[in-house]
């Protein structure tokens, strides 16, 4: 929630995530917040972004909220239906996907991430969804953007499970590993935007109302500060908020 209550953290997250989508991107998008960010981009600054779903959906333009990528509402307006081999294979593994927009449970300093399982305080492991196409997308797309809510425990030097490789794994670069693409280039949360390059992670901007020091304190991975300091993320526009509230997520499933 913004300090003055004009938007929620989820709304801010969807807006900041959407700004990572470039017009013309061919993007495979994951379940939940990535759907929100991608659809918002498609309806605002990136009308020529082409979205793909690993379930075998090409270029959907849904107009009502959906319960995930397996919800037929999310496939509305698609121009073609096909297979996972076509989306994760021909498109992603074949080098035709410029962007993967994905959620994560946990991220490391090089943007590798975990969607498989977390370790509870008592040491027990709790399993979530697994990779699905997440590993394939992060292994093969041009660049990866992670969108997730901000909690300190989600940032870790060593992941409980490395589902998807980022810019490097241990001391091995993507090229060493045999992977194309640049890997994770941004982690967008409901508090900030972290960008990554081959030197590491940078606290690029904090959202309106956040102080960089507070965000740094809650982000226990090495974070550089850009020349000129951490900026403020642009606030959501009225148009963006209206679109989220009226069309994208009127029930607040993802952004409340």
């Amino acid at each position: 929630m913004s300090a003055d209550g004009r938007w929620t953290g989820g709304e801010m997250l969807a807006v900041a995530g959407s700004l990572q989508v470039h017009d013309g991107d061919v993007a495979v998008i994951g379940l939940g917040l990535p759907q929100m960010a991608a659809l918002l981009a498609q309806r605002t600054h990136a009308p020529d972004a082409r979205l793909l779903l690993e379930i075998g959906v090409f270029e959907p333009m849904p107009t009502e909220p959906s319960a995930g990528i397996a919800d037929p509402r999310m496939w509305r307006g698609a121009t073609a239906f096909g297979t996972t081999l076509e989306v994760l294979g021909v498109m992603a593994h074949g080098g035709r996907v410029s962007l993967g927009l994905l959620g994560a449970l946990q991220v490391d300093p090089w943007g590798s991430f975990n969607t498989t399982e977390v370790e509870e305080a008592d040491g027990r492991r709790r399993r979530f969804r697994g990779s699905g196409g997440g590993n394939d997308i992060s292994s093969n797309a041009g660049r990866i953007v992670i969108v997730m809510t901000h909690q300190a425990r989600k940032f870790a030097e060593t992941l409980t499970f490395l589902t998807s490789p980022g810019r490097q794994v241990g001391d091995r670069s993507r090229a060493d590993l045999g992977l194309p693409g640049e890997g994770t280039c941004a982690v967008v949360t409901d508090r900030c935007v972290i960008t990554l390059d081959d030197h590491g992670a940078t606290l690029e901007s904090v959202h309106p109302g956040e102080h960089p020091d507070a965000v740094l304190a809650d982000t226990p991975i090495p974070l550089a500060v850009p020349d000129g300091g951490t900026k403020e993320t642009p606030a959501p526009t009225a148009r963006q908020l209206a679109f989220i509230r009226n069309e994208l997520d009127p029930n607040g499933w993802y952004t409340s």
Partner: protein
Amino acid sequence: MSTRPDRVVSLRELAAGIPDGSHVALAGFAITRNAVAFAHELIRAGTSGLSVTQVFSGMETDLLVAGGAVDRLTYASGSLDRFGLLHAVNRGVATGRLELIEYSGLALALRLHAGALGLPFVTTRSMLGSDLLAPLVAAGQVEQIESPFDGAPCLALPPLRPDFSVVHVDVADRAGNAVVDGPLWSIPETARASKVALLVAEEIVDVGELDPSRVTIPGSLVHAVAHVPRGGHPTAVYGRYDYDAAHLRSYVAAAGTGAEEHDAYLDRFVRGVSTFDEYLALAAA
């Protein structure tokens, strides 16, 4: 005069043909197009010791695991989209009762694809550098190799040939030629990889009524088809019916509370009825 085979059987016969300990590939995706009627029938038949492969596991697999039918699951992911996780699967993994073998979605689809095509093995770059790799290498299911052409590191995966596959289709003709509408995820590979391909169909028509250009699974590959309208409930079947959100929520509420509550769900909705029609009536009540 040449003839066309008649491959239509009852759902009970279809399920009864699957021995304990079989390797069964399922083809639903989270909350869409799951062969729920088939899973119910298998639980009622008391089938056990199955090895299940499902690339994007959903309701059908969670039911079978809850029903004690499954010893081993091979998957790339499992969820009920935003309705929740696969609680029976995750509980089985946590307690060690369920052996889990994990791939990326593409890697598992490629293993099925290689099985379908009879390829000696298949290659990919996916999973390089990830924690998915080590257990698969240890189990002999993946080899780290180099391309003989450019020396690039890559992975070799052996073909996967499940004993059976079960796909929930829209329309099948009596010879098993089947149409699936909407996105197909790993359905084509799953049906083609298995030694025995079984179908559950919303609708059955005579041979000759389908446009051959629309056939997703050729009858030449299919062994039997059972007719079960609404057999995917409470999951969605594209163009036919929506998922039943209320039922999914009550399922996840039971499944997520604990094994006992999950079992009570099965007692009521699966073991407490004798046909899928009875279940549908109960679910609608």
